[in-house]
Every structure is written in structure tokens, then in C-alpha cells.
């Protein structure tokens, strides 16, 4: 499902300086697996997720996701790829604060040319299943942390992507909300999604839902 081959990512800084975020990383993740990328801040976890999501290109090496070399995708194809294949959950959720919860969820479907009523219906169903039914019309900035996270999850799932990528999804949540999120992960996993979570939250490793832990240290697999 996901295969990285000898991937390096170097971010150039001013002058001749640069930061090596990933160095010669090779790994593969099977379909339906729930994998946790473990590592301290700055270890390269987010870069790895961004590469899988075709949000950035490697400096060398290849990234193949769902049979496509996404490292080579021109930007216009990368957008389509992300919309159709990837659901992304960010640490700070990245919702548009001045849009309502339901509008945030419908956004990724607008370029798909589905009818507006179908899009609303899908967004409504998924928000309802995540327990945000009563706050559909509330602006995202007025939602609590837990609600924002559920809206972010709904936005990631609304396009029915095969792969869910989550970057520190519980970093700003308390223990109860984190446990709620873990329950949602179980549901996603049961529906056959491939899930990759970048986190250093020890709770994930204690609950036994993770198939595999990949440890990253200084841009290399440990």
C-alpha cells in the first residue's frame, strides 16, 4: 500500500546550510495496517507523513502509494491523489474557523462535482456518526477541542480515503478525548483503512490497537 525506497529529504536553509529531515529511509506498510511512527519532535515523522501525502517531494528516493509514484506527481495530479486517496488529520486540526462544522467537512468534496445535496448528506451522516450532530452549524472556532478534532476526523473521512494519516492527533487533547479518538481509530481500522499515526503519546502503545511501531530517530529508522 505504502512503500518508501531510499528516501531522503533535505530542507535547504539560507546560504549553504540545510537540515536533513530524513536520510535514506526505506519502509513498507501493508493495506489495512495501523502503524505508529514514534519519535521525538524533529525526528522526521511529519516529513514522512507529508511525503506519503504528496505534500512535499523527496530530495532523493521514491515514494509509492496505492501503486502510484507520488514522489513524481506534478502538483495538479497530487491534489487529485490526496483528495481521492488520503485523509489527513493534523495536530492543530487546521479547520477553517470562520466556516461552520458542516462546511469544513463538505470542502474536500466540492471539486468532485457531486451535487451539493449529496455532499451535504454525506457530511451530515459522517458528523452524526462522530457525535457532532448538534453543532453542525456552529463556526469551527467556537467548537471545543474535542469537537474540533471530530470535525477534523470527519473531514478526513468524508471522501472515503483508503489511507488515513494523522500527525500528533492527540497532542492537544486530554486523556478522555484521547481515548475517544482511539475508539474512532478502531472503527476506522475495522472498515479496512490503512492508518499511519505520527505520535509520541505513550497511550497508543499501551492499548494494543497498533499493528506495528516504527521508530524514527534523527531522520533514520531506529
Amino acid at each position, binding site marked *: 500500500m505504502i512503500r518508501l525506497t531510499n528516501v531522503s529529504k533535505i530542507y535547504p536553509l539560507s546560504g549553504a546550510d540545510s537540515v536533513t529531515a530524513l536520510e535514506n529511509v526505506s519502509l513498507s506498510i501493508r493495506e489495512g495496517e495501523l502503524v505508529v511512527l514514534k519519535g521525538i519532535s524533529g525526528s522526521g515523522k511529519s516529513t514522512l507523513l507529508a511525503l506519503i501525502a504528496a505534500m512535499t517531494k*523527496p530530495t532523493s528516493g521514491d515514494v509509492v502509494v496505492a501503486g502510484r509514484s507520488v514522489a*513524481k506527481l506534478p502538483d495538479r495530479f497530487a491534489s487529485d491523489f490526496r483528495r481521492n486517496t488520503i485523509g489527513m488529520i493534523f495536530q492543530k486540526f487546521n479547520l477553517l474557523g470562520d466556516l461552520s462544522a458542516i462546511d469544513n467537512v463538505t470542502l474536500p468534496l466540492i471539486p468532485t462535482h457531486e451535487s451539493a445535496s449529496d455532499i451535504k448528506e454525506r457530511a451530515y451522516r459522517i458528523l452524526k456518526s462522530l457525535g457532532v450532530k448538534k453543532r453542525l452549524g456552529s463556526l469551527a472556532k467556537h467548537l471545543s477541542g474535542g469537537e474540533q478534532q471530530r470535525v477534523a476526523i470527519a473531514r478526513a473521512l468524508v471522501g472515503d480515503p483508503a489511507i488515513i494519516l494523522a500527525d500528533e492527533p492527540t497532542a492537544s487533547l486530554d486523556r478522555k478525548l484521547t481515548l475517544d479518538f482511539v475508539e474512532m481509530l478502531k472503527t476506522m481500522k475495522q472498515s479496512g483503512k490503512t492508518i499511519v499515526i505520527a505520535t509520541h503519546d505513550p497511550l497508543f502503545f499501551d492499548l494494543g490497537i497498533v499493528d506495528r511501531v516504527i521508530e524514527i530517530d534523527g531522520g533514520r529508522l531506529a
Partner: protein
Amino acid sequence: MSAFLTPDTLVLLLIEGLLLALMAVLLPSLWRLARRFDIGRTTPEQYALEKRAYLAGTLLRFMLWVKIALFVYFVYALDHLSGVITGAMCAAGVINAWDYGPLLLGWKLAGLYLFGSWLVLHRLDLSRENLPFSRLKFRLALGLAAFMGVEFALLIGYLDALDPATIVSCCGTLFSTANVSALGTLLAIPKAWLLGVFYALFALIVASALLRRSGLAALFSLLFLPVALLAIISFFSTYVYELPTHTCPFCLLQKEYGYMGYLLYFLLFAGTFSLLSAALAAKLVQEKARFALGLWLLGGFVALATWYPVGFYLKNGVFL
């Protein structure tokens, strides 16, 4: 006063010079891309080349669109210069004031088709995930750079040779059947024959496009271009001027005739190019050729050209 110092030519030279300078800046990148670009590789060099290819492609696309638009300004400037060059009544006299003037015009005309073809290739390349034509298009871009260099040299030579004090021939002399030249010989072809070939070729273009015969549509479009130009000079223009002895392709560009030439030539050039590029695209990406736009443009050209003699006949009851 030198022809260099007219506002039109200064603007023309400035823009052409800037575009050539930009092309010179791009040349090292084009050279690397033409030699080293290989989408199959995953090396740091290849990823760097892919970024460079995007930038170079975007700049080239901008430059070539400007070049295409600049052709219209070039023709306008030529027409305007007829007020400065002694004896010139329109752009015909101005362009023939230097032996290589017609070559410059032909070069620029060929440039329209070459630049347009590159833009089509660029669009096709970007429309595919694996950028299949990148290396080819950057190799061709190197050729375009050389083409633009020659064009600029011709333009400088031409403007330098223009002498306002030297009397040049007017279009009445240049486009006369009495003119002892290849053009004079062509203009002596009987009009009935010429019109027969003109309409027959148009019919063949329509038929081959409707039958999706890309190669034939392209071939007939190529043949149609010179025949149509000859038909404009020899026949249709006389009905625009309403004067049987006035056969000039350039006076059509003047205000007295409602700048009709700009529309007529746009339809002809854009139409033939559209058909040629549709055939080229169909060949390259193995898809159905999209001839509709070309057929509409060329149909518009034929209808507009035909309207003048028909309108004249309806108004006066006779042909010229």
C-alpha cells in the same frame, strides 16, 4: 530620422530584446534539462531538474505567448512605418524596403506556428502524470532559442536598412501580375482555378476532419495556407477595396477597410494552426483529434472572405 527611432520600433525592439535576454538566461537550464531530464530517476539531481523544468516551462510559456501577441504589434508597426518610409502606402512597401524584409516576415509567421506547436506540446506534457514529452520539449526549446536569435538579428538588420529617404515601391507595383517574380507568376494564375483549389481544399479539410483522418486534415491545412494567402491577394482583397486593380494583402490592415485584415488573418492562421496542432496532439497522445475549434475558425475565414464578393454582387449585380 532613422526607423530605429520611431516609438513603434523602439517598443518592438525593447520587448523583443527583453524576451531574447530572458531566453539567454534560460539557456543553461534548457541545456541541462534537454540532456539530463529523466523522469524515471529518483536522484537528487532529477528532483532538482523537475523543479527547474516547472520554472523553465512556465517562463517559456509566458515568453512564447508574448511572442505570438507581438507578431500582431509587428504587423501594426510595419503598417505605421508606411507614414515614414517614402513611397510606401502600406506595410507592403515597408517590408520590401530591404531585400530580406519578406524573409523576416516569413520567419515571424513561421515562428507563430513553431511557438504555438511548442505550447501545445507543453500542454500535452503537463497533462500526463509522467511528463512524457519533457525532454523533447526542452530540446525543441533550444531550437526555438536559436530561432529567436536569428529573428532578432533579422529585425535589427531590417530596421537598420530602412532609410526614410529612399523611395520604395508601393503595393500596386509589388503585387502586380506584371511583376517579374515568382509572386507575379503566381498572381497570374486564373482566378477561377485559384478559387476552385481554395474551396476544394477547404472541403477536403472539413471532410477529413469529420472522418477523423488527422494526417490528411493536417496535410490539407498546410496546403490551404499558401493557397488562401494567394486567394486573398489575387481575388478577395479586390472586393474589400472594391477595385479590381488593387491587389494587396497589407492594405486590409488599414483603418479605411475597418482593420478587416486582422480578423481575416487571425481566422486563417489560428484556424490552420488549430487543425495542425489537433492532428499533432492526436498523433502524440493517441487520442481522438479535436478539430471543432479549427473548423469553426477556418469556416469563419472562408465565410468572411466569401462574403465580400457575394456582398458586392448583391449590391451591384456584377462581379469585378
